């Protein structure tokens, strides 16, 4: 049998009515839990995995696939509507998506996220089925020096794209980089900036920082500006559906997001967050509506949302072909597979084709279910914004603390949540962008560790960083991305760039 036959056989299994029902249940509870602010896909999957234990392998696989995609997608809803991303891969979605929601275009933002997630999920799952063995070879070419080059590129594309003031964007980024240094150094075990406080040894949890700065900071900011602020949140203006123009502006970002997200998700040290950062930077560079970026550009939602879903499917490539769990979510999935006596690894496609193809078919089914469930629900979600603010924000804060209390219950962690919340508020107050702080916290340690690993392998020879065509190419791309706008600005071209720069120089 060839790949295609296997897939058809898997689909035939998955199209059983009972299986479809499991898929629907999985998608529903996955979305419902994933949508809560402060609860990201990793926690969603970890919490809901036991629900699948009681079923037969086919049923539990499909329900599990539904939970995975549902949890992944659910995070974007609160990002867009409430500016409170539940996990790092939805942070850039919040930038443009929440602006759209404030302008009454939340419906369109949710729709482009849902359809983009569907398109990306579909293409990436097919790519997983047909290309996994080839993609994994590509992913293995990436060693520490290539990852370092990729981080440099991510830094450049992302930091160039945040905020309207280079000084404030860089300040936010460096605050994130500084926070990232707290805790045990991954390569030597040396404690840094922890001053003997044991809770600091593990560093600042990304979810704690993101939830605090976005959810709590936002609540504080909205509450403090309630008096005298006449800015009304429009639940909806015009149609909840996407207009023809929205479609025209969304489809290319969906495809580009998929193309960026899938391979980066497949890399052992990649991940959905980096994919979403790179996609956002790409869309901002390629857009015909640069003036809308920062004020609710639909491309800035469509691209990153497609990218993070494609990356979620990409994560399965090393998991299924090599047995490598490369993210927290994948590690939990590995535990899920082991429940069926299934050991993911290089021989999995050969030894258990039925289950592998069943899983891939399940992912396809779950992906379709997700769209079927969520498009009608958009109307309901935007109603969230019509809940009176005291109750809405009361609920947000309750859920924001729930994630921390459930996963990392300590007074120190809760205190950090509040301190970073206040910091998020003060930064908003003075016009500093929030996202670069979280970006710095995520990318900083990765860049540092990959740099030092690359140098250790090369015994201190710095030329190793550009010694392969791939790493040299990535660094070259980063230099171009940095230098070209500068050159354009110096030659006085590009009204937008001039406007971006006007604040400080």
């Amino acid at each position: 049998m060839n790949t295609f036959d296997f897939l058809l056989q898997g689909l035939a299994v998955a199209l059983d009515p009972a299986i479809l029902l499991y898929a629907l249940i999985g998608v529903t509870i996955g979305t419902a839990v994933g949508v809560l602010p402060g609860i990201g896909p990793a926690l969603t999957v970890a919490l809901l995995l036991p629900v699948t234990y009681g079923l037969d392998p086919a049923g539990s696989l499909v329900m599990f696939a539904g939970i995975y995609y549902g949890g992944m997608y659910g995070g974007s809803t609160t990002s867009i509507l409430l500016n409170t991303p539940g996990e790092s891969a939805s942070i850039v979605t919040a930038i443009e998506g929440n602006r759209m929601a404030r302008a009454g275009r939340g419906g369109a933002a949710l729709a482009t996220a849902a359809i983009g997630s569907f398109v990306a999920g579909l293409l990436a799952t097919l790519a997983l089925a047909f290309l996994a063995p080839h993609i994994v070879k590509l992913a293995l070419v990436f060693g520490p020096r290539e990852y370092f080059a990729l981080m440099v590129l991510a830094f450049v594309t992302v930091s160039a794209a945040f905020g309207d003031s280079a000084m404030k964007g860089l300040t936010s980024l460096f605050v994130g980089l500084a926070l990232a240094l707290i805790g045990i150094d991954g390569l030597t075990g040396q404690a840094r900036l922890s001053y003997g406080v044991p809770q600091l040894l593990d560093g600042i949890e990304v979810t704690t920082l993101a939830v605090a700065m976005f959810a709590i900071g936002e609540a504080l900011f909205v509450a403090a500006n309630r008096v005298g602020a006449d800015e009304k949140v429009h639940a909806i203006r015009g149609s909840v559906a996407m207009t023809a123009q929205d479609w025209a502006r969304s489809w290319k970002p969906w495809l580009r997001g998929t193309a960026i997200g899938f391979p980066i998700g497949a890399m052992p040290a990649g991940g959905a967050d980096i994919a979403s950062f790179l996609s956002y930077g790409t869309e901002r560079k390629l857009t015909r509506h640069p003036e809308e970026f920062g004020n609710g550009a639909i491309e800035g939602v469509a691209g990153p949302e497609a990218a993070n879903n494609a990356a979620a499917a990409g994560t399965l490539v090393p998991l299924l072909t090599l047995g490598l769990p490369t993210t927290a979510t994948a590690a939990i999935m590995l535990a899920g597979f082991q429940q069926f006596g299934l050991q993911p690894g290089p021989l999995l496609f050969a030894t258990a084709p039925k289950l592998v193809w069943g899983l891939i078919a399940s992912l396809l089914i779950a992906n379709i279910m997700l769209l079927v469930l969520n498009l009608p629900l958009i109307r309901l979600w935007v109603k969230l914004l019509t809940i009176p603010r005291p109750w809405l924000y009361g609920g947000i804060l309750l859920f924001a603390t729930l994630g921390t209390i459930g996963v990392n219950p300590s007074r120190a962690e809760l205190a950090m949540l509040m301190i970073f919340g206040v910091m998020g508020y003060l930064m908003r107050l003075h016009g500093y962008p929030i996202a670069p702080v979280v970006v710095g916290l995520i990318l900083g340690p990765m860049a540092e560790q990959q740099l030092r690993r690359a140098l250790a392998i090369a015994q201190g020879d710095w030329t190793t960083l550009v010694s392969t065509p791939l790493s040299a190419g990535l660094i070259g791309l980063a230099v171009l991305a940095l230098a070209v706008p500068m050159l354009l600005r110096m030659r006085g071209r590009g009204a937008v760039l001039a406007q971006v720069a006007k604040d400080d120089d």
Partner: protein
Amino acid sequence: MMRHAIFGAALAALAAAPAWAADYTIVAPAAPGGGWDATARTMQEVLQAEGISGSVQVQNVPGAGGTIGLAQFVAGAAGDPTQLIVGGYVMVGAILTNASPVTLADVTPIARLTGEAVGIAVKADSPLQTIGDLVEAMRADPGAVSWAGGSAGGVDHITVGLLAKAAGIDPTKINYIAFSGGGEALAAILGGQVTAGISGVGEFLPQVQAGTMRMLAVSTDVRWPGTDAPTLMESGYDVNVQNWRMVAAAPGLTPEQQAAVAADIERMAGSAGWKAALATRGWADTYLAGEAFAAQLAREIEATTAILKDVGLVQ
């Protein structure tokens, strides 16, 4: 509001049925999903299913290689015979490198439950055929032999240090590259980024069976099932490391309380349910209890302290 109340009452009815006073609370000093968490939850299942305990709760206290959970356990559970904590060899190193104020001497070790050998492997097309080749390459130029493994000061790092020391090579000269999580280290080995890799045998076995990697040696004193790689000892290096997991009780128990807990754990470890759970998870049964375990633990703490000083991780 009314609907909420009814739903709440329904939930209450649903939840109240099996919930009596907990016989045991097991602290997993790690986040949900990891090895210690899995151990705690497997114990929970088996203790309940075998009727040894009516109700078992698992509590996760993650952080700093388990030392945060350990500290909290020692402070909060002293004298309470219903409290257990799961731990392992990684904790021994973490206590030293983090200069933890609380050590394993502050709890009452009950039994070693399971363990795994550390494997040393290279990519299939590597010119190094035996562990002897690898050690000689390291002797010739230690910097040129890069090792990919788990966290700094963890069991993988310690094993490389012990091997270097046993072979008469300066342990501070090893070029050990710490990766977070097994997946990344494995990818670095398969991608040919490093000379050799060191990790739990289970992590390498699927690759070895698929022919993409070659296992050169295992760290335990006996060969490990699933591979014919020699032990380090039979290759002439006096190294014996097992990455074990254990269960301990609270400090300050009376001998009677301690014996009762030990009896419950022994019943669990001897049960068919526990054996089946070990088989499903692919864990080896390395049960060791009482005086024998206490003596083994003391020996390992001593050896680990010495090697961490040698590689410069502990002053």
